[in-house]
């Protein structure tokens, strides 16, 4: 199995870069998968694009068909229209066991900005579903992503990583909004977007006492469904400016590829009330709110995901013990996964070797039966058993050697030697 991942995340690249390389929406992803199939026809591919990371996983049976770091970077560059030199230094590449370990870490939220956050699991699932929908993935990536989801479950079950504040929204509200407002039950909250992140934010804010909830979304129906669930009111995007004027807390979490709130709109909404503090949280990548909105007046407190780095790092430092436990599980699972992969790689040769030797033994037995017709059935059975034991004993050393070699990687050399020694053809 040849597997590699090229990625940039919140630890390696700024939000400015991440949003330029992000894949937003099913249509853009469909176009990306189409380009990937054309550029790397022998490869399976899965794109994982969230507010914290942009990752491109590729896998192929033939190591010679594996795309290089430069080729994958070139793909990102041409697809997004961003010169390679602008981001090559921020782009990391992992391959083989390291790539597996990386995905397991990502899916277990060890690599997340907010340690233990549950959203990443559904984001990984959704990324794989979209790859499948676009016929971009295959058996290798399937095994990899299923393995990642299984490991994530185990990490959450066996560690306390997912306890405490485990969402970006909860960290942002706890860290910044509580520095501005004393209470939330008399505040109006406007949520832009009706996705999972928006819902999670609402869940947290409602638990904090928020009563007045407004949801705006491109699809008013979805906004109404989400708002109704949390005792609020839903609207279409056409009401956004009007609702911005009434909100004390604005949370934007859409999948839009460009800001849905620009300076002009926000200035109009703020006119006459620039003495009232407003907390604006932009959870989008690309950002949903123009960063220049923060400069409109001094009572606009605008934050994006990168503003939470310091708090999240503190959170990580406090839970280093849990991280170590999670990493131990991930390392163990990565090793097990890779052994499974290697064993699967040696499977066909083992099968063919067994079949070939069993066939020789069967032919010899037939010949013996025709020459020694006077033998009783019970005697023939004993001869058959003896021959089977001989075959197994003769096969044991090479198969053991193969198994031993497969622990450290696909034993290409030994497989080739066995093929040549025993005339096994693909």
């Amino acid at each position, binding site marked *: 199995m040849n597997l590699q991942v090229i990625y940039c995340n919140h630890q390696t690249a700024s939000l400015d870069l991440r949003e330029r390389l992000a894949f937003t929406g099913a249509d853009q992803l469909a176009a990306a998968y189409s380009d990937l199939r054309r550029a790397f026809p022998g490869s399976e591919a899965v794109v994982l694009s969230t507010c914290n990371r942009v990752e491109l996983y590729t896998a192929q049976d033939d190591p010679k068909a594996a795309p290089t770091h430069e080729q994958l970077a070139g793909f990102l560059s041409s697809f997004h229209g961003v010169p390679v030199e602008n981001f090559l230094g921020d782009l990391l590449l992992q391959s083989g066991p390291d790539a597996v370990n990386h995905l397991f870490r990502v899916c277990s939220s060890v690599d997340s900005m907010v340690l233990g956050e549950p959203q990443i699991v559904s984001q990984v699932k959704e990324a794989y579903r979209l790859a499948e929908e676009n016929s971009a993935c295959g058996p290798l990536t399937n095994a990899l992503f299923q393995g990642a989801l299984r490991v994530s479950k185990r990490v959450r079950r066996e560690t306390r990583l997912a306890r405490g504040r485990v969402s970006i929204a909860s960290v942002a509200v706890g860290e910044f909004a509580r*520095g501005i407002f004393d*209470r939330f039950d008399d505040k109006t909250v406007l949520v832009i977007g009706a996705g999972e992140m928006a819902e999670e934010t609402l869940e947290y804010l409602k638990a904090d006492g928020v009563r007045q909830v407004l949801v705006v979304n491109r699809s008013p129906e979805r906004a109404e469904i989400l708002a109704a669930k949390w005792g609020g009111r839903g609207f279409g995007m056409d009401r956004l400016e009007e609702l911005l004027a009434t909100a004390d807390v604005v949370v934007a979490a859409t999948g839009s590829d460009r800001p849905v709130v620009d300076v002009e709109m926000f200035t109009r909404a703020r006119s006459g009330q620039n003495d009232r*503090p407003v907390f604006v949280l932009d959870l989008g990548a690309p950002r949903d709110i123009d960063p220049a909105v923060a400069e409109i007046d001094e*009572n606009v407190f605008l*934050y994006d995901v990168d503003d939470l780095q310091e708090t999240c790092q503190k959170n990580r430092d406090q839970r280093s013990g849990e991280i170590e436990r999670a990493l131990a599980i991930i390392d163990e699972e990565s090793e097990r996964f890779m052994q499974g992969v290697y064993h699967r790689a040696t499977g066909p040769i083992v099968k063919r070797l067994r079949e070939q030797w069993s066939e020789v033994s069967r032919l010899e037995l037939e010949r013996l039966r025709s020459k020694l017709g006077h033998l009783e059935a019970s005697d023939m059975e004993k001869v058959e058993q003896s021959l089977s034991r001989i075959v197994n004993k003769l096969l044991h050393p090479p198969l053991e050697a193969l198994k031993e070699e497969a622990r450290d990687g696909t034993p290409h050399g030994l497989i080739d030697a066995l093929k040549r020694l025993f005339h096994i053809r693909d």
Partner: protein
Amino acid sequence: MADVAIFCFLASYTVAFALELLRLRTPGRFGVLASVLFSGAGFVAHTLFLWNKGTTTGIPPLLSSSQDWTLVLAWLVIGLYLFLVCCDRRLSIGVFLLPLVLALVGASYLLEDSPSRLLDSDTRVRTSWAMLHVSSLVLGSAGVLAGVSLSLMYLVQHRRLRNRGGRTTGLRLPSLERLSRMNWWSVAVSVPLLTIGMGTGLVLLLSGSEATGNLSLTDPVVVINGCSWMGLAALFCWMLLRPRASGKQVAWRTLLACGLLLLTVVGLSVLTNTSGLSSGHASWSSPASAVSAVERGTVG
């Protein structure tokens, strides 16, 4: 217990302030505990000092000398600090309140500590007017001090939040909303109290010109303090007329008005008592002197 000196609690407050500063770098439960312990020890010594003064002179510390007047003010502020820290130990309000306490206790060294006239048996009569005058001025000044600290806290917190500082640093402050509300109330409480203080002072001045000696309405101390009070009253009116004014605007104006008032009150007390400023209020600067003067006027 009778040997408690100003230095005792000044030293305790200094250590407590140093510990508060240390907490900014390395926040932890131990730092808060140590800071509260030193402040509490200082507070006990402070209380004993004022109690001793009161029992020695036979009159409340408010009326004995301008030094005691300042020390009572510092005592009120440290009491407020201990109360707030007990309510929420994570808050770093000591960083803002303790320097004010240190400044007041430090300034008290420069102020008059001569209750001699009060100890004269024929002037040891308290008038309710003088008591009302000084107590409302002290409480009003405590409100002004609170206003200065709260405004500073608001501005620091505002700046931190605008610069995406968050709460991860050691400095933990109440929310802008709470600071703004507390700031409003500190002004709203101190202005009427200071007004009562000024009004009763005026009554004392007009009721017995003989008693107040050469103190007049044109005395520089009376004029400057009056102007500072007017500045604070103007701020209060502005706050009432502009209920939707932004917290930052209120904080800046409060800081200016209260800061100016505080500086003039303490500064003038120091200047008149060190004879740097010629004022009829010098002999009257301590409320105790006022009492004695009023007593002389009414008796004589």
